[in-house]
């Protein structure tokens, strides 16, 4: 009973005239879609994930991937994907696994927001000729500064909380060693150092190799507490408690035993081959007061020298939750929207749970302001940031900074084939296979991620300059410089943005 699910999604077209039978494509395909049969390369289309590795590696440009024309009768509700999923589950009786972010909801509110520019009444600022500043401090800010006059000089009586100094308001998100390779981890860490920002360790601890970069790494403490020990906390630039993530709100991280190699076992402090399954909740956090205790415990453990961040998935009641997190002493809150990526998540959770980061961010920023506590915590938005335009819009809605995950991986070579959960990543990113890992050069990868961050920084300065702003803090929460286009009244109201033309 194989029925139509065996219809492959992609087709590998090999130009037989151009192919010189070098077999390089076969060596490179980690999904086994190409084999050597009868003295030629044979494609097994049903195994192809369209990762583009063979296409890139073919010296003769002899390979092209095509989407298989559907042979199914079209139906607007029973889409091909819907039918495939039902068929797969009727065969396996199991949860559907997925990678990357939400595929069900195509509207990205960022695309319906338009930025402003100066014309006539005030001058746009030219970033090539005038300084424009992007520096950002993440952490708790005092409500006022108290100075004392001592003769001719002034003394600062206000004690500042520890803050993360970022040269750009773009951070690299939390992706664990285990989900991604140590080479990918190293590339991201090096890039963070190069651009004066931070990367996240993810929930799998920190490989020995990464410690030299640790002053640019935010070390994560998640419900599994993998790899958490005093030296780890001590090494990081900040500590982040992961309550949830946008790709799987309410679900803990899963790393299959097959990915637990000896190095990962050492880093995570768990046995080789054992599944690393993070509990859905932290079992010492059943409510907000428990979170406050963990925040304080981590501050105590790091001698009050490092900011403590708390990351949550954007869920319905996000504004009230963040108010509680702020009052629990978090120096920054990371809000991960429902389009955020991941290595592995149940598809049904990924596509149906949570809310868009734009709305969550706007309502949290507004709520904290109404309560007069916005200065007490920084807000970091993540999950959908695809370009510098998204960065600017998130900041104008109220974010202090953003985090990027998928974009950073694409810079490393990821083609978004959405098969991270298989561990077979042909680009050496989401894999622990030594042969596949060797495909990613951390130094070259770091340069590419650094280039991406540099390019976005330059674009951000152009955006600011056009708006007549020469420092990022004057865009922060400046919803006056946004207009909504094609958004309904209620959405605009939540965003606190006027419709275009008004």
């Amino acid at each position, binding site marked *: 009973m194989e029925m139509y699910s065996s219809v492959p999604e992609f087709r590998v077209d090999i130009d037989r005239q151009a192919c010189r039978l070098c077999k390089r494509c076969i060596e490179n395909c980690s999904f086994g879609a190409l084999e050597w049969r009868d003295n030629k390369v044979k494609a097994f289309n049903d195994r192809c994930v369209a990762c583009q590795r063979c296409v890139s590696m073919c010296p003769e440009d002899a390979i092209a991937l095509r989407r298989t024309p559907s042979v199914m009768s079209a139906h607007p509700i029973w889409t091909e994907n819907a039918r495939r999923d039902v068929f797969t589950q009727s065969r396996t009786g199991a949860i559907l696994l997925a990678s990357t972010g939400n595929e069900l909801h195509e509207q990205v509110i960022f695309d319906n927001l338009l930025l402003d520019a100066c014309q006539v009444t005030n001058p746009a600022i030219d970033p090539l000729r005038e300084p424009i500043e992007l520096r950002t401090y993440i952490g708790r800010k005092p409500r006022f*500064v108290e100075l004392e006059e001592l003769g001719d000089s002034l003394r600062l009586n206000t004690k500042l909380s520890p803050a993360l100094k970022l040269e750009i308001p773009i951070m690299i998100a939390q992706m664990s060693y285990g989900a991604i390779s140590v080479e990918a981890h190293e590339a991201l860490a090096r890039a963070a150092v190069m651009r004066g920002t931070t990367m996240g360790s993810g929930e799998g601890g920190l490989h020995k190799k990464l410690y030299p970069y640790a002053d640019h790494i935010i070390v994560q403490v998640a419900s599994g507490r993998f790899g958490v020990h005093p030296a780890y906390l001590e090494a990081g630039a900040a500590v982040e408690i992961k309550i949830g993530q946008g790709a799987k709100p309410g679900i803990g991280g899963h790393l299959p035993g097959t990915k637990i190699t000896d190095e990962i076992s050492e880093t995570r402090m768990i046995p080789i081959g054992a599944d690393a399954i993070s509990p859905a909740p932290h079992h010492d956090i059943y409510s907000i007061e428990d979170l406050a205790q963990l925040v304080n415990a981590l501050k105590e453990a790091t001698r009050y020298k490092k900011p403590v961040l708390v990351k949550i998935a954007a869920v319905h009641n996000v504004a009230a939750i963040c108010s509680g997190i702020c009052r629990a002493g978090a120096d920054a809150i990371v809000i991960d929207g429902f389009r955020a990526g991941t290595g592995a998540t149940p598809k049904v959770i990924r596509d149906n749970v949570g809310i868009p980061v734009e709305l969550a961010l706007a309502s949290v920023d507004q709520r904290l302001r109404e309560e007069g506590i916005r200065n007490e915590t920084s807000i970091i938005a993540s999950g959908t940031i695809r370009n510098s335009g998204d960065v600017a819009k998130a900041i104008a809605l109220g974010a202090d900074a953003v985090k990027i995950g998928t974009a950073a991986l694409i810079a490393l070579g990821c083609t978004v084939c959405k098969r991270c959960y298989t561990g077979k990543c042909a680009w050496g990113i989401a894999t622990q296979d030594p042969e596949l890992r060797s495909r990613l050069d951390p130094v070259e990868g770091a340069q590419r991620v650094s280039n991406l961050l540099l390019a976005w920084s330059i674009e951000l300065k152009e955006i600011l300059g056009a708006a007549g702003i020469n420092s990022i803090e004057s865009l*922060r929460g400046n919803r006056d410089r946004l207009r909504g286009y094609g958004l309904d009244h209620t959405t605009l109201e939540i965003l606190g943005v006027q419709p275009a033309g008004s």
Partner: protein
Amino acid sequence: MCSILGIVNENRKRLSAKYIVEGISLMNDRCNGLGGGFAAYGLYPEYKDYYALHILLKDFELKDQVAEMLKDYVNIYKDEEIETRNVERISQDYIPWRFFVDVPERYTSDADNYIIDLAMKINNTGGALVISSGKNMGVFKAIGYPDEVARLYKLENYKAYMWLAHGRYPTNTRGWWGGAHPFSILDYSIVHNGEITSYGTNKRFLESYGYKCSYFTDSEVLAYLWDLLVRRHKLPIELASEVLAPPFWEQIERMPPEKRRIIEALRMTYGPAMVNGPFGIVIANGSGLTGTAGNGTMVGLSDRIKLRPLICARKNGTTFMASEESAIKAVCKNPDNVWAPHAGKPTVAMVNGDV
């Protein structure tokens, strides 16, 4: 584009309106007749202990309503219509009224905040606008060129030791009486030339400190920011100026360590109070509530890359701050010195002597 002018005599010699009106009128090509206004300090020596509320009323019936409201909160010592004459080009959209009031004894310890709250309450009722609320000072403003507004309010009848004037060329909101400058809160008044690109950030920052912006124009936030920084948070004028027009991080890094710590703390704390976009402003402060030993001050400041002009001059204890040198020369032929302040650095004129 707008025109601004400030004149202050540091010995509290009261000057007639002639100088300020002549000076500001010379810059009529910087404005378009959609707003003009003046602030005057030392205006009511006989009522100097009372808050002088200048209120614009949309219609006459509102007068009793406002008076009733005031009676619930303050003691009215005296009230009267602010005298005006017909001026051809000005349509009398509002009736200006002044109330001299004091705060009931049980609230005197926090009288200033009490008056601000009251002013914001009246502004939110619709139809009535408190355009100034300080002691021994007042604001006069309307739609028209500054010289027309001066004639409207019969300014020739007033004398003051410190004057501000503004001619408006509205660029972001329509011209209306409330939108004309100066913007004033308690003893602070401000005239502004420019367009604030950080308005949304500044406004939302101020809202979390209880200020309500009700004039639909960017310049309003400057008055509230100054009030917050100088009066409520007690920052010295030099440092409050560094909040509005902060040095670049690169400059901060080159400062001596102690100064650097202070400026870094200010930028981190008051980042949302930074005023971006072009501005030239003159701020008058009658009472010098803090940092100036009870004396008044006039402060001139431009944005940190000086995208708007500001020029200063001094002669025999009188200081002038203007958009254009010509405006100063029109009323003071041979100043002792004339200078252009550096971008983002305040020029401060102090007033001596007792009120």
